[in-house]
Every structure is written in C-alpha cells, then in structure tokens.
C-alpha cells in the first residue's frame, strides 16, 4: 500500500499507509492528523485541506483543475507547491509522497 508522509508545522512526521484510490486528504482525516480539516468532505468547496507538496513530487501529480486553482489562490499563504489534498488521488506511483501541512487552515 502506498505510504504518504505528512509533515506538520511543529515538526511532527506521520508516515501513513493510504489505500490506492483514496485521497491525501482522506489519509490525513482517517489518521486524525489535525493539520487537515476537510470541512466539505472532499468536494473542493472549502479549501481547508490545503497542503504543500514536496518539490520532488510536484510534477508527478496531475495538475489542478481551474476550480482548485481558484480556491488555492485564496488560502492563507499560498505557495507554488500548494494543493488541495482532497484533489490528490493516491496511486501506487505516489508511494513515498511527502506533503507539508500549513500552520492553520483558517
């Protein structure tokens, strides 16, 4: 099963097995990583699942939709490698993916 690493702002590192087909957001929610809030349950409506994708992985993830890009521009402190984790589907090819979590989703 692919492993996704979530690094919180306080330095906490969680290496989580996430089922292929599930989302990076769901992996965090399932494991009660509180840096991801996910208010809308993954429907790209709330931007509270914001994460920063590690440089090594940015190009390996399918690009964001227009809707996601619009939402991302408005999160707290958006960066080039910002993504909404509910829109990142985990696959076997993404085994080893590393994401950093923002200090706050609000």
């Amino acid at each position, binding site marked *: 099963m692919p492993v996704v690493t979530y690094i919180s702002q306080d330095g906490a590192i969680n290496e989580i097995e996430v089922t292929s087909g599930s989302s990076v957001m769901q992996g965090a929610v399932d494991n009660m990583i509180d840096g991801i809030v996910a208010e809308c349950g993954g429907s790209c409506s709330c931007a509270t699942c914001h994460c920063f994708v590690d440089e090594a992985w940015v190009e390996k993830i399918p690009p964001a939709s227009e*809707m996601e890009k619009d*939402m991302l*521009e408005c999160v707290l402190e958006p960066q080039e490698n910002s993504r909404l984790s509910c829109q990142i589907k985990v696959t076997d090819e993404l085994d080893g993916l590393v994401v950093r979590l923002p200090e706050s989703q609000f």
Partner: protein
Amino acid sequence: MTKSCCVIIGASHAGGQLAVSLRQEGWDQKILVIGDEPYLPYNRPPLSKTFLSGEKHVEDLLIRPEAQYEKVDIDFMLGQEVSRIDRTNNLVILDNDTDISYSSLALTTGARVRKLDLPGADLKGVLYLRDISDAEQIQPYIAPGKKAVIVGGGYIGLETAAMLRKLGLEVTVLETADRVLNRVTAPEMSAFYTRIHEEEGVRIVTGAGVTGFAGYNRVREVLCGDSDPFPADLVIIGVGVIPNTELAEEAGLDVDNGICVDGQCRTSDPDIVAAGDCTNHYNAFYQCRLRLESVQNAMDQARVAAATLCGKSNAYNALPWFWSDQYDLKLQIAGLSNGYDEVVLRGDPGAGRKFSAFYFKNDQVIAVDAVNSPQEFMVGKQIISKSLAVDKVMLEDTSVPIKSLLTNA
C-alpha cells in the same frame, strides 16, 4: 460503579467529530458514541448526489473507517435508540432498558425530516431523503424515462432534481412559494436556478401547494388542489427538518428551536454539551440566536464542545457557510443573508453559469452566494468576517479582480 466515560448520543457529522476531537484534546478516558442508524459516521451531502446515482457506495461515505476509531479507542453502539437521559444518576437509558453510566454527556442528535401528513402520503414511492436507508429506498425507482416529482424547491429538492435528471428521469419540482430557494436567497438566485434547471429539462412549478397523493398501493399522481395532477412514479419530499430535541426536553434541558447552548456549547446543564443541527446557539456575526443545518456548524461546534468537556474554553464563533452541487454548478455560500437590504451582482445570472451575489445590510456585506466563483466565495468570507468596507462599483465590475477588493478595503 461509575467509570469515567463520555457518552455521545448521535453518530453523524457532529457526533463523529466530537469523539475524534476529544482524543485530540487529550481526553484519555472511555468514549462511547451511540447512533440509531446502523452505520459509523458518514458524509450526508453525497446522499442527494453521488450516492443516489450509485457512483458512491456506503463504504465511500464513511467519514473514517472502523479501524481508525479502534486505533484510538472510540467505541460505537450502532442501530441503538436511546429512551431517555437520567441526569440525576448520570445514566443514559437505552430502548432495551440497559443503563449506560456517563461522567460527561454530549448530545449530537441532529434532525429528522419534516413529514407531510397528507392523504396518500403512505403510498409506495412517496419518499424522503435524509439518510442512507432513505437513499436506498429511492434507488429502485430510478430508471430513464420514469417520472419523478420533487416536493420542495430548497437545496435538497433541487440537488435531487439535478441528479435524477442526469440519470434520465423526467423531473418536476413543486414549490409552494413563488420561487425556489425562497427561504435562503435573493430572487436573482431563484431565477438563475430556475433557468438552469429548465435548460436541463426539469420542470419547475411554483405556487404549487401539494394536497395529496393518489395511486393504488403505489403512487401514480401528486395532487395540487384544483390544478391538474402531476403524474409520478417516484415522489421525493424535501420540506425541511425538525431538530431532535425530545431527549433533551424530557431531561429538563432548555429547548427553543433546538437544544439551547452557550458559546462553549454547554446546555442549560453545564455538564452536558450539544453540537450540530440539533442546537440553538448565539451567533456573534448576526447578533441573534439561531439553528444552523450545515456540515460546517456540526463540525465546528463539535470541536468546541469537545474542548469544553476537556476543561478548555474555546468560543464558537465561526462564520456559517454552505455549499450545494447541482449539474456543473458549484454554489458556495458564505454567511446568512436574512435581513439584507441590497444585493450587488457580480456577473450576469441571466446568461451563462458563473456569477455571485453579495448581500449588503447597512452597506456591510453580510453574505455571499457564489456560483462557480470560488474566489468570490473565499474573498467574501474574509470581507464578512472582518467587516471590511467594499467599493460596490469595483465589486460589480468583473474586470476588477475580486482579490483587489481586499487590498483596497
């Protein structure tokens, strides 16, 4: 013998979040969540969308899988009704007369559908939509060419209409008021949604008061007084919900359009908290008490309630927001528009499928309805929560990027 145990009555969005938040806040004693449905906490919004269509299944809806609750020792008692709460003895009494002791109690009992007590309402095919079991009862009626009549032009009604239309049914929406979404939006929004639904082939009938249902064994027609009846193979009624406050009321807690709670989600008994659709609470933005029916409120209140049970004092003062997905329309709503005195439109609701409506009261933005306009929604939230002043001319001008209204405020 009383063990330290937090009992949470209600296992949906608020109950599930409250249990998890308790662990995150450091509660290290027993947690028991009691729910009357046979499912672990699941996402309700997909019920009128991808679950109805069969795209998603029950396991896809669960907010968290069972194994995750086991990892953090959160116990569930599912398919279990609670009869009453004995506050004197700190007991929750189940409908099989078993007693459960609690040291802390949380009520996350949610709401149930308002039912229409009309002739023929018990015919087969006259259904509601609130939970998985409701959606599963609807599914066998879904087939291209079948006639569906939706009673109620609110969000549930319109979302269901959109999904059934996508699945090839002939769909009619009957709304008693003179426009759909009349309780929650401006006329421009109602007109927009009516146009889109009609473009998609849904028939919207307003001023339609349903008086009964006709059929032999199963429904065949929806009756509207002296008007022509509407043929129907399937009827879905979505006319609002009623908060489940009976347990609280019978236990002597204050109830008034929901279980009354303070800013820390405490009920009138300081050892009992409540969260979600079932609560009546004070909203600092709108300076009034209200009851909200939304996922955001359920989850945010649940977090505050859990913190309160752990001896912390967070206040609940989140800005309400909602979303609704119909066809290719993403509607995101920030704030509550009741009492608005002016609407400024950004974009044209008469053409295309992208625009937003900013609701003003005394020249302050109090709410935003954003259709396929996520930036207007996100910026709108900032404007409302920070009470920022907004230039209405710039707002109306779609060549001005919405984000620049934040820097100019």
